[in-house]
């Protein structure tokens, strides 16, 4: 899992390994951690790290009294230069205190078990995202996006004026009249993000024919948001009664962010839970031509069609 992430992210990712040996329930957690450090002292930490995980089934049933012999054999296998020194480090507990200190530090961090991960100093909530490549990848993308978050959208529109948004996509332009009058806060947020270039190169990550095309998440996963959330602005004046309604995706009441969707049909089941910010007045055919993509059914699908940019203009 981590190896695959390292391969995929390349120089964009630094991987750090810290010992969290569960010494109260694992009788060989301590000595194997010491062995990795002893190999590391001779420049072979990662080789020993990989081999210990690879051969876990082999050494986990080895009697404790024979462990040093087994580990010395591994050290030879990965060409640790000074095997006698390696063996002495284990026999003399050279790294025992360090490993115990690592354990205490891990407990202090508040980890729930192993493996536990931290991305850019934030604990990875594995139960929410899933302890998997996909879960970690999604969280890494979210933490990367965090660098671009805003605390609030600046006021960029005049709610007494009318505005047009043009979504430039790989498939053509989609022109939207924005409902400044009924959703001034959310239209302003959308316009602010557009002005900031937030939507540039962001995909329509969820396109379900007959339902909606959803985009606006730079992570391309559906978890991304701009660092703030806005309250709902729902009005009876606009309903999901036809194709081309433009609304903000949410995760419950008052959680509007950057993700938006365009309807492909009347979808009255979405009333009144979603804030409608506009309506397509040109290019609905472009929206309908977006490549279908369902991240829940097929999370490994090719990225969706890209938004080149979104431009906001005052209606003339």
């Amino acid at each position, binding site marked *: 899992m981590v190896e695959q992430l390292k391969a995929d992210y390349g120089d*964009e990712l630094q991987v750090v390994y*810290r010992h969290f040996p569960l010494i109260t329930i*694992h009788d060989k957690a301590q000595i194997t*951690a010491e062995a990795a450090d002893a190999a590391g002292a001779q420049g072979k930490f990662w080789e020993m790290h990989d081999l210990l995980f690879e051969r876990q089934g082999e050494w986990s049933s080895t009697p404790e009294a024979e462990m040093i012999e087994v580990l010395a054999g591994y050290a030879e296998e990965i060409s640790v230069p000074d095997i006698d020194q390696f063996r002495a480090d284990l026999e003399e507990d050279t790294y025992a205190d360090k490993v115990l200190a690592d354990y205490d530090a891990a407990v202090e961090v508040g980890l*729930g078990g192993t493996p536990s991960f931290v991305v850019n*100093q934030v604990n990875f909530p594995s139960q929410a995202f899933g302890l998997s490549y996909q879960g970690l990848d999604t969280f890494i993308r979210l933490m990367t996006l965090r660098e671009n978050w805003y605390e609030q959208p600046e006021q960029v529109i005049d709610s007494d004026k009318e505005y047009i948004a043009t979504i430039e996509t790989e498939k053509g332009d989609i022109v939207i009249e924005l409902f400044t009058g009924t959703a001034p806060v959310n239209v302003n947020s959308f316009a602010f993000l557009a002005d900031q270039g937030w939507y540039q190169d962001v995909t329509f990550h969820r396109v379900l024919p007959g339902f909606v095309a959803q985009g606006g998440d730079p992570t391309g996963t559906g978890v991304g948001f701009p660092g*703030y959330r806005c309250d709902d602005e729902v009005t009876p004046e606009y309903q999901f009664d036809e194709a081309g309604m433009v609304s903000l*995706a*949410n995760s419950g009441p008052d959680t509007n962010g950057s993700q938006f969707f365009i309807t492909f049909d009347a979808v009255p*089941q979405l009333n009144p839970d979603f804030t409608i910010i506009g309506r397509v007045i040109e290019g609905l055919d472009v929206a309908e031509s977006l490549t279908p993509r369902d991240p829940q059914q097929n999370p490994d699908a090719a990225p969706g069609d890209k938004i080149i940019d979104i431009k906001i203009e005052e209606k003339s």
Partner: protein
Amino acid sequence: MFQQYLKDRLPAVLVIALLLTGLTLAACGGASEPAGEAPATVEGEVAALEEEATVETEAETEAVSEAEDTPAAVEPVAEATEEATGEELPAEPVLASCQAIDIPDNPLIAAVSDSDWTKGPADAPVTLIEYGDFQ
């Protein structure tokens, strides 16, 4: 799998982790719309739960913010209640605002140092720390 035995010494994070267990994509649409799960995001729940881990000063700031909003918000809410018996939604616009959501760093995590075992550039934009047990 080893969370239970550490529960007592790690209450704060474990509580958050357990709360996060229930995190799912918000969904509606139902049987009449097979392809029709609502356009959902999950960030709200994640952020809300992370907020619980923030220090008291942030909670106090939010409380002050809510208090400031209250007078203006009371009237529309009351009107909405009166109209709730009908089919129509409240005609009066509800005053909306935007709130910052932060997922804070865990200050207890030591910065990466020379004593760490690392792979990849130190200045990489993403640092992934694994806390692991070989057994």
